[in-house]
């Protein structure tokens, strides 16, 4: 059984393990550590927290006076800690990438007699542009930044390798498709 991919609930639970926090703090901590690309909306935080409350994984530790919903302070329960442990122990399902848009584009280009090599070159340039950007960010960021950027870089590099390999095999591919 695989876990269901990136889970905001488990992530927020995990952040609570170090101690009770306000909803506002939770959002800031999440954004800082994981949300470089997509910061959380407050709405996402409240809906997630109310679901966790309902499931008994967190409890409301206290409410500051005169505050809105963001002034609720949450604490993790025993069940919540167990749930986080379970989630971490469950392996992530490797992404098979079998349905690749790029592959589709290449085949289509070949089928329609357009230049597949150009598509690949354009894609490579785009990949490298992104990789350069990530590398720059890595250069200026802290260790966490570096780890996140490297993750992306390795994936992009894998894509690029596939591009190289495909480029080298375009002629064979064209022949096979036209058959």
């Amino acid at each position, binding site marked *: 059984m695989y876990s269901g991919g990136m889970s905001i609930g488990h992530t927020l639970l995990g952040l609570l393990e170090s101690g009770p926090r306000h909803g506002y703090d939770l959002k800031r901590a999440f954004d800082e550590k994981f949300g470089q690309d997509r910061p959380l909306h407050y709405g996402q935080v409240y809906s997630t927290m109310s679901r966790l409350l309902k499931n008994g994984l967190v409890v409301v530790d206290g409410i500051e006076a005169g505050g809105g919903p963001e002034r609720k302070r949450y604490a993790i329960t025993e069940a919540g800690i167990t749930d986080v442990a379970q989630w971490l122990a469950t392996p992530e399902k490797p992404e098979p990438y079998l349905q690749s848009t790029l592959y589709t584009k290449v085949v289509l280009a070949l089928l329609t007699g357009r230049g597949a090599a150009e598509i690949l070159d354009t894609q490579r*340039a785009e990949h490298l542009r992104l990789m350069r950007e990530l590398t720059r960010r890595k250069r200026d960021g802290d260790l966490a930044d570096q780890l996140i950027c490297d993750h992306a870089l390795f994936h992009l590099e894998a894509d690029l390798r596939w591009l190289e390999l495909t480029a*080298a095999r375009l002629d064979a591919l064209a022949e096979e498709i036209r058959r």
Partner: protein
Amino acid sequence: MSSTPLLRATGLDKAYGPTPALAGADFALRAGEVVAVMGPSGSGKSTLLHCLAGIVRPDAGTITYDGRELTALSDGARSSLRRTDFGFVFQFGQLVPELTCVENVALPLRLNGEKRKAAEARAAEWLARLEVDAVADKRPGEMSGGQGQRVAVARALVTAPRVIFADEPTGALDSLNGERVMRLLTDASRDTGAAVVLVTHEARVAAWSDREVVVRDGSVRDAEWAA
């Protein structure tokens, strides 16, 4: 992108025996930029670098460096240019095994006629900058590959060259050490304003550059300059 290139090559041909390594390759490098030269193995990447650096004379084509026609220079003049204006980092086997790191790094300066003491003092500064001052008095055989490559980078930079030619500088290193070498190399070149020609087949390494060109079958696809 209006500035005139520091180093420009047009229509380079070079063959080793019957096999052509370069066929009509064009290339341009502006002062201070880092350009990655990519391509599958056997595509002529290294040959391009050797031609650009004046190590190998191309069979046809012209190379202009800083207003000078490189292909017209004598062997001696090209050697002297390489001593003063260029720096080199290779994949491996470039450090003299008998010399200590300081002596290795001081070597290009001494070839330029600098006194030993002064040369070694400057070499020591560069070793510190590349975080290998701890092994300054060790020989290449007594240190790790990553340290060795950083010493090699220090040697390439010590003469304050205007162009550094790096041929697979991380080829023999693991990711982490490769990372460190690339960071130090590009940081140092940015600080000193040296341009870098970086031959690599790894995209992650090429990502440290400002732009890349691809060599395929001996010709260069350079998105920016091809037109």
